[in-house]
């Protein structure tokens, strides 16, 4: 059993949206639906300016609020710590959407089912990396087992002191280097 997690290094992210599009293709999402949202943070005054891109997707929270509020148990956490939505159980009540701290969930307009980043569970089950990680053109994303101290992701978290976006809101499994 693993506890999967990710590092996103915003010092490297160039805001290229490759992760978004590869994710849409991998998951066969409608054009308007994306599992990844992008935030831009500009600081300073010309010419001393800094800019940061922060891609945000489901953080696969421990004790995920979306899971505890989901009345149908459509949202669940796998033994490997991946938070998933069972498309056959979801009624589309959107309670999970209001409960998510990260605005990470979207609703499929055709089926009404609420969806979100699924850590590419099928690929991971085959021992592969999630699509967004594979394609990230600046190697800003690292995926792996948080419980294994020798995994690349664990080492990166230690090395760069990566932190969840809001550690105070409960532990998430995506760590950001900022």
């Amino acid at each position, binding site marked *: 059993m693993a506890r999967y997690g990710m590092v996103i290094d915003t010092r490297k992210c160039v805001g290229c949206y490759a992760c978004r599009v590869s994710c849409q293709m991998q998951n066969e999402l409608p054009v308007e639906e994306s599992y990844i949202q992008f935030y831009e943070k500009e600081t300073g005054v010309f010419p001393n300016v800094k800019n940061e891109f922060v891609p945000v997707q489901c953080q696969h929270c421990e004790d995920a*609020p979306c899971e505890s509020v989901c009345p*149908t148990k459509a949202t669940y956490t796998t033994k490997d710590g991946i938070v998933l939505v069972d498309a056959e159980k979801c009624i589309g009540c*959107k309670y999970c959407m209001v409960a998510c701290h990260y605005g990470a969930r979207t609703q499929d307009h055709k089926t009404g089912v*609420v969806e979100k980043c699924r850590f590419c569970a099928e690929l991971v089950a085959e021992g592969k990396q999630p699509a967004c990680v594979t394609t990230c053109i600046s190697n800003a994303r690292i995926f792996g087992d948080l419980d294994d101290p020798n995994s690349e992701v664990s080492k990166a978290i230690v090395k760069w002191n990566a932190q969840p976006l809001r550690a105070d*809101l409960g532990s998430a499994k995506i760590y950001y280097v900022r």
Partner: protein
Amino acid sequence: MVWGTIIAAYLFLAGLSAGAFLTSSYAARKYPEAVTIRIVGRIISPVLMGIGLLLLIVDAEAGLKDPLRFIYLFTNFSSVMTIGTYFISFFMMAAAFIALMEILKKEINKIVEYVGIFFAVATAIYTGFLIGVIGAVPLWNTAILPILFVVSAFSTGIAGTMLTSAFIDKKVVHHVMSLKKIHVSLLIAEVFLIFTMFVITSSSNESAAQSVAMLLSGEYSVLFWTGLILVGLLVPIVIESLELYNSRQLHRRAGMEVAAAGSPGFTAIVITESAVLAGGFILRYLLLAAAVPVIFL
């Protein structure tokens, strides 16, 4: 707005329905002669709850497409929505049974009525807790919100019952003065609760402060001040207080009570109770609309 007008209407109708049920039970005890109020309350409550549930179902698109899935609603006991589903189910069963007995003019089983009262209160509280437990929206995430919703549920319940009754029996609504007193107190409490909630949340959290600013001076300020505060709360408070004051005068000069049942009195009732209902809906709509999620960047 993830949750929009439809959910606002659902929360409003659930509260209203619970309030109407409680109003009728109260009236049945306190004013056994005010039959209209009792019957009206008992009949509108399951009907409104039913409409509310329908709205919820319509909003839950995936379930709407595959209704059998709604069974799963009963499965997660850590979800307020599941618990609420139980509350509403029991409340609906009791309320519908009682309404049926009223229609069939049969004796009402006391136990069923107590069960109904219990779950009506639970339902009213639930509507507050449903959004009150959401940590992601600091404006909602307070202990006051469920109280506010319960208070508002009772006041809209009274308003809904009185308004409907007024159309059936113009006189009866002037009998139930203690109900009116309760009503005014509830409305005053509501004003107090709203502002207390704003002060507490906005001083402790940035997102909530943004929400409050949106309501008091931003995007939603017109609806907030004129729709909720003026129309939904102040106007009914003033009119009902005047009415209460007048009725005291009238009682002193006994026999004149009949005058109040004339058309000016009827108009006042229609205006106040409609205003309270509008306010109840606007309150829920605004709280959903001004939901600013926690800042995570």
